[in-house]
């Protein structure tokens, strides 16, 4: 298992890590538990923040920054706009007795968790203990930019196309709806 290296700097890191990890997990559970979607969205923002901290601990500064700026700052704001617009209809997740769907859901999720742990542990168990040593510039914007424009140019371009498609889709979905004949409301 993990070798706990206790040194002064390390203790601080450990404490930060534990706090961030618990915040992450707690907000994740909160997202799926709240009945009011507004609170769920807020919980997700918290989740994103905790994740950003974890990214920083992993020397992924740029990604952490992007996470906070883009994800939490743009995407989640959009979410909150829509929730505010829709009026926050809610549903009780555990209403009624446990149905087959719910039992199946819990079972599937639990199985996935166990499997991921087992898979990762079996495949990479021994090697996970030895991390590479990295350069200072690892994870810096400079490194990311270089990688985007040299090794992973294709990913870069395709991502931009995906964003374009999403934008077009959003425009279409948001256009004034034409009344279709024989529309029925469920």
């Amino acid at each position, binding site marked *: 298992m993990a070798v706990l290296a206790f040194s002064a700097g390390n203790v601080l890191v450990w404490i930060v890590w534990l706090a961030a990890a618990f915040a992450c997990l707690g907000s994740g559970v909160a997202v799926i538990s709240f009945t009011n979607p507004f609170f769920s969205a807020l919980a997700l923002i918290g989740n994103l923040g905790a994740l950003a901290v974890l990214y920083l601990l992993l020397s992924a500064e740029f990604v952490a920054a992007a996470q906070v700026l883009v994800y939490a700052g743009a995407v989640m704001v959009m979410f909150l706009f829509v929730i505010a617009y829709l009026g926050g209809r809610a549903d009780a997740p555990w209403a009624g007795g446990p149905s087959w*769907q719910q039992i*199946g*859901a819990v079972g*599937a999720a639990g199985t996935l968790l166990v*499997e*991921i742990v*087992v*898979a990762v542990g*079996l495949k990479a168990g021994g090697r996970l203990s030895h991390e590479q040593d990295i350069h200072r510039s690892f994870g810096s914007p400079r490194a990311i930019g270089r990688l985007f424009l040299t090794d992973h140019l294709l990913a870069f371009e395709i991502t931009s196309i995906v964003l374009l498609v999403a934008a077009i889709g959003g425009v279409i979905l948001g256009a004034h709806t034409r009344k279709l004949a024989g529309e029925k409301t469920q």
Partner: protein
Amino acid sequence: MIVAAWICLSSPLAAALAIALAGSRISRRGAGYLATASVFASFVAACVAFFALWGDAPHDRSHYSTVWTWLELGSFSAGLRILVDPLSTMMMLIVSGVGALIVGYSVGYMDGDDEERRYFAYMAIFVFSMLLLVQSGNLLLLLAGWGLVGLSSYLLIGFWQERPSAIAAAKKAFVMNAFGDATFALALFLLIQHTRSLDFDTVFARAPGLSSNHWLVNLVALGLLGGAVAKSAQLPLQTWLPDAMEGPTPVSALIHAATMVTAGVYLIVRTHPLFELAPKVEDLAAGLGAATLLLAGLIALVQTDIKRVIAYSTMSQIGYMFLGAGLGAYANGMFHLMTHAFFKALLFMAAGLVIHALAGEQDIRKMGGLRGLLPRTYWAFLVGALALVGLPPFAGFFSKDSILAAAMHDGWYGYLLWVGGLAGTFLTGLYTFRMLFVVFGGEPSPFVREHLIRPRRRGEAHHGEGPFSMTSTVAILAVLSLIGGWIQFAPLWIPVTHWLDVVAPTLPHAEATSWQEGISSALAVGLGLAGLVAAWLVYSRRRVAVPRLPFAQRALEHKFYFDEAYDLVFYRPGVATARLFGRIVEGLVVGGSIVGLGRGVGDAARGVARAQTGLLRTYALAIAGSLAVLVVVFISVR
């Protein structure tokens, strides 16, 4: 001569095609005249062929002509091959001569019918088929003609299609004939296998080589006999002939009296070398003939339909011909075939005149006293009846007695047949004159008084008994029935036997001595007269009442229960099997499997479609579940 034979054969076919293709462009009368002219042309051509053959030396009278080789399989070949020899020219003359008279008669009889053209086309096809049968030079073409006459018979019996009884009778005739066709074909298969040919000359030359194989020769002869029995309505396949009277009267005259039903006799005479190799089968043929002639004679005693009496009479007389052929007296049998064609056609056509005059009524119980009202018909009928009973100098006398005499030579079996034949002459006299006296004798019955049609036409020379076409042809046949027998008077003067000697020499044990001929003739004539007198006493003078034998009466009326027996043994099981198959095989297996297949696919699809719930969460659960399974798979495999 060969050309004449081909013209004889193809003339009626050409007429049939012309009538069929002309459709309604030809008038109905015109179709009748065309058909009559074509058959008459056949007759003329047959005469030419006959006289040309007569000019040949006796041993040289066998001419083959092959137009086209149809089938060649290794050493076996069969083609469109006709044969002109004494036997075939004799049959050609009979068929085309009597056929021309009867087709001419039908112009008057069928006048006014809506479907006259179809009738004459069918008649022409029939004449063609019969000529094909008698002119063929190999057994394959004979079988083709055989089948075609069966077809024509079916078409003509069921001519009046609106009558269910006619349709049923046509089917019955065809099916029973098909049985004979099957046995015939089986015999041909055996012949092909062992003699590698179906040409007459080759088969008959190679046949004696097979005589050691008793099974083979007996089977071949039995097969041929089966075909002959079916076609000639002999026991046990005789039940179709009375029902065939549903067709128009000229059809009954031509097909079921003069020509088609005699094809069986022709077959036996033509293939006599094969029959001679199987003497037991020949004896069987003679026995069947004798049994049939007695059976038919008995049944004819209780028939009330004028045409059915004559039909049973035909059956009986063909029994005589089978008797003759079975004994080996081929020429006698053929001679009787010829005279029988004359007087039987005459009887049918005279009966047709009666039916025509009474607007379609055929029940003799309703008739009576027609002698004064239809005098000429009466005389024609009388001539035919006297010829049938075999009283001199009419035609039947000369032909029938020689057959009986031939039986005396053949040991105890022959004598048995002889006695049977004599008993048959008594019955013949009885039923024939019963019919005559009931129909023509006494006072006109109420029915006759009401319904008799006597069309008064200007310049009608025959007292309006029927149109000229009908009365003239009947008159010709009456003359032939009188003089037709004078062509042979055994044992003094036998040109017919000599004529056929080359082809079908009479077997030694069937040649009768003159005292045998004398005894047979005397007894036959005597018994015939006795029958006539008995009928006179019972039906004319009414001195003697009809004997009351209810059991016998019922048996005779039910035609010895043959129809019921066949119904029970063949028809009902057949229908039950067909229904069973229809229900199980067709219904369950075929239909069920197809329907079941469709339904099964539908049900499966519906079951699978239940996975398409439309619910997002179901799909997501499915994805998550499969993911969970796949991870396990990937872990364990790699």
